[in-house]
């Protein structure tokens, strides 16, 4: 009968539990690593109102190459000419993957929830030290680790100011890029309070290149990087900027921080009546001191800070990082407000007012990437450096699809394993083990060979050998021989009188052997067997 297969419930349950736990663990890890979002992620390569495509296209029109960094800022270490490269971080939407790495002290650490790993922050810092420019625009995101490494800190909570766009709402705040705060005249920005950029407009080493050429009569075709300031046959540089921000925070300067940078300069501040919703409850409760009843803050806060290697932040020495307290300062809706109001990025609920976001951004790019050989003595305005490049950090933007998210994650891991000390060590070990594995396990198929093999032994029962050496067995064999020799049946032989049997044997030694039960030595037994063998032949 065919046996039915046994249904082992315990084994099945164990297997189910194992796969369930494994799946749970995997899904947990994957959900941490892969963070697929909606189309709301801010990208220089998207065309939505909250992307930065207009800014990127303007840069391209200036003849500057733009690239995106999808893996990790660790790759900044591989840039050949950092002095002519600008790295733009706009809105750090997610944290880094927490992987083990060596800290600067040589200890093993895990990246905490601050957006960028220590190695990445270090790479950005090295990039700045090498002459690169970095623009960090963030508000409530994960860019604190970068900011703190340069001696500043994003507050990370919403800031409200009295200098806001009244026709929109209080979330739209004006940022006047100047030393002192600007003010309102009723519902409009008071033009009397608007001043110039504290560095770009000053004729010293840190002056904007367009300031250097300001007032010079020049053909538009020779206006170079200052084309946007060309008017009526001359460069007419205006260094006042009213930048429109949305949902902003404040930036603090961390006192006594050793960053290795030459200067930390505030480029823009709020009005003195600005408030910060510290506890994020949507209400502002301020007092003379901060306590449980009045947890929020009020006063003047920084909106933009520039940290430079050189004291005057000049464009020739490079090495500057600029922090803006809003991640959306250059989104299409604000940057290209005309296109937004015309519906180029979808239906506009309310028109965005005229602003200087584009002007400021373009002047920032010019300041960063103008040919460093330019001295201001040439007749024509210089162009951007020949190998100028703008890199947008896309590594911390939430990707809209699982494919792009997976691609970013894989790329991140690849850069991590080839850029971070501990990961490189780990990778070396993995490669070594893989080589060993290949060496040990990977076998070529054996060459075919015909093997002639007929080795076979049929053994008998060896246990019976000792039995056949015992005197009782020998006696039995001998008596059988006597019986056969005399042609007797078993019954006849068994009923034979002893005297007749002795007569049949007729050998006194064998008679004694048959009738006397006693122990025989080996030699005696051998002698008896020999006698039995020859018995009956005569």
């Amino acid at each position, binding site marked *: 009968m065919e046996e039915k297969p046994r249904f082992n419930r315990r084994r099945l349950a164990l297997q189910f539990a194992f796969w369930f736990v494994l799946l749970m663990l995997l899904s947990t890890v994957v959900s941490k690593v892969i963070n697929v979002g909606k189309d709301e992620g801010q990208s220089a390569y998207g065309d939505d109102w909250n992307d930065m495509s207009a800014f990127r296209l303007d840069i391209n029109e200036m003849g500057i190459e733009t690239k995106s960094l999808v893996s990790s800022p660790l790759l900044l270490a591989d840039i050949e000419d950092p002095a002519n490269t600008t790295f733009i971080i706009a809105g750090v939407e997610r944290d880094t993957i927490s992987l083990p790495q060596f800290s600067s002290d040589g200890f093993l650490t895990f990246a905490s929830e601050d957006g960028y790993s220590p190695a990445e922050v270090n790479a950005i810092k090295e990039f700045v030290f090498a002459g690169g420019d970095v623009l960090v625009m963030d508000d409530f995101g994960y860019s604190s680790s970068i900011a703190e490494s340069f001696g500043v800190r994003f507050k990370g909570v919403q800031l409200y100011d009295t200098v806001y766009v009244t026709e929109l709402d209080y979330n739209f705040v004006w940022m006047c890029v100047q030393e002192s705060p600007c003010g309102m005249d009723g519902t409009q920005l008071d033009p009397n309070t608007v001043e110039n950029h504290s560095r770009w407009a000053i004729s010293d080493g840190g002056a904007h290149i367009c300031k250097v050429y300001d007032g010079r009569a020049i053909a538009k075709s020779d206006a170079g990087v200052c084309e946007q300031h060309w008017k009526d046959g001359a460069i007419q540089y205006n260094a006042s900027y009213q930048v429109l921000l949305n949902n902003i925070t404040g930036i603090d300067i961390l006192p006594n921080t050793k960053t290795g940078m030459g200067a930390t300069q505030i480029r823009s501040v709020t009005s003195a009546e600005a408030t910060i919703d510290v506890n994020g409850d949507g209400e502002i409760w301020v007092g003379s001191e901060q306590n449980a009843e009045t947890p929020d803050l009020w006063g003047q806060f920084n909106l933009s800070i520039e940290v430079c290697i050189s004291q005057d932040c000049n464009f020739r020495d490079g090495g500057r990082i600029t922090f803006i307290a809003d991640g959306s300062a250059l989104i299409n809706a604000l940057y290209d407000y005309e296109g937004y109001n015309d519906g180029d990025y979808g239906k506009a609920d309310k028109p965005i007012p005229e602003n200087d976001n584009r002007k400021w951004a373009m002047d920032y790019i010019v300041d960063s990437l103008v040919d460093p050989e330019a001295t201001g003595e040439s007749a024509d305005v210089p162009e951007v450096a020949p190998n100028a490049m703008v890199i947008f950090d896309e590594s911390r933007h939430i990707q809209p699809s699982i494919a792009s998210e997976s691609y970013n994650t894989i790329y991140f891991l690849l850069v991590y394993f080839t850029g971070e000390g501990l990961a490189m060590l780990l990778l070396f070990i993995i490669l070594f083990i893989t080589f060993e594995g290949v060496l040990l396990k990977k076998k070529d198929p054996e060459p075919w060979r015909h093997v002639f093999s007929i080795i076979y032994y049929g053994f008998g029962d060896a246990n019976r050998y000792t039995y056949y050496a015992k005197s009782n067995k020998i006696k039995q*064999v001998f008596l059988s021989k006597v019986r056969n020799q005399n042609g007797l049946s078993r019954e006849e032989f068994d009923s034979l009188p002893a005297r007749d049997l002795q007569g049949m044997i007729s050998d006194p030694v064998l008679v004694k052997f048959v009738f006397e039960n006693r122990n025989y030595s080996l030699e005696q037994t051998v002698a008896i067997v020999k006698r039995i063998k020859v018995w009956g032949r005569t």
Partner: protein
Amino acid sequence: MWTRKAAFTFTGGIALILIGMMISNHQMMILGLAFIAFIVVNSWVSGHGDVEVQRTLSADNLYKGDDLYVELLVTNRSRRKTQQLEVYDNVPHEMKLRSGLNQMRLNLKPGESARIRYVLRCPLRGHYSVGPVSLRYRNTFNLSVDEMYVDHHSDIIIFPQIRDVEEAFIRSRTAKMYTGATTLRTPGPGTEFYSLREYVPGDPFKNINWKAFARTGELMINEKCRDAVTDLYIILDSRDIARIGTVLKNPLEMGTVAAASLASFFIQRRDSVSLTIYDEKLSFLPPDTGDKQYFKILSSLAGVAPRGTMPLQAVTNSLAARFSRGSPVFIISSCEGDGTVPSAVRDLVGRGHEVTVLSPSSIDFERLVSRIPRMSYEVLKIERQNRLTSLAGFGSQVIDWMPDMDLSQALLQVRGY
């Protein structure tokens, strides 16, 4: 499947790329990429095993110890080159490669053929199958290897050797018992001419005498004299105990040689021969004569393997009714481990059969593979002699067949004990 070389190339390529990325060395990365590209391109250029195979054997049936000539024709029926193709003809490991090789490395063009010839020595009887044909194809750089096989088999039967026993039967007492076919002066199936008679519907055409028909114009039939034949019964012991000894010298091997030789001798004399093999079951081949019966007997003997513990008494009890009265019976058995042998022999003799027991000396076969203490051996021998003596006492003829003794020599030693 990748070869070791490919695995190393791939791992090396990956390692070079990663290390190149680590130390920002582009040359190293390019070298790594070149390795990977080499693997990828080679994976497109692989060999194939789309070949036709045809095997020709010099014979389908052979006697033990004979040589078998094998020819393998391999034809590439694809429109591509085979690249490095290894062809291996799977040969049973009981066969020895005497000359040539059963494998070859080929690179066949489309439609091209190649022949592989080799010779096998078949030292063991049995039913064997040559094949299938294994194919292993690699690409040019030996980076990938795949295996397949062509399910092409050639069956072959290796019969036991036939020993010449005629002289032994002439000289020994045994020959007197078996006279072979003799003609009787009565019409019937036979070989010698008896008379000519008129054709009767139903007569086979092959018996028509065409010369007489041409002369007389009437269909005439050749009638033959009926042959009187002896029915010989051979009973072969194939129990598990018959395996004792070496692969070439054990009671079963010697028993099959004896059975085949006896069958050959008696069938040549136009006697009818029956074969009974008992192991775990009973297989009985009814008595018959002719080449067909001879082939059946040899085929049965070729497939015999030691197994089971069936007693001889059970065999004789079940077959006694089928045995022709008074016909000779040959029992080929070591008579070991079976207490029913004496009674079975007694019964056969009692029924009027001429019983001959050909008994390979199993204790001497055992001595070929085991170190038996001298005294135990002597006692075991005496016990065996007792057993054979008792069989002789029941009226059978007993032959004690030693391992180094030829069959004809053993037959001469028929003893009455």
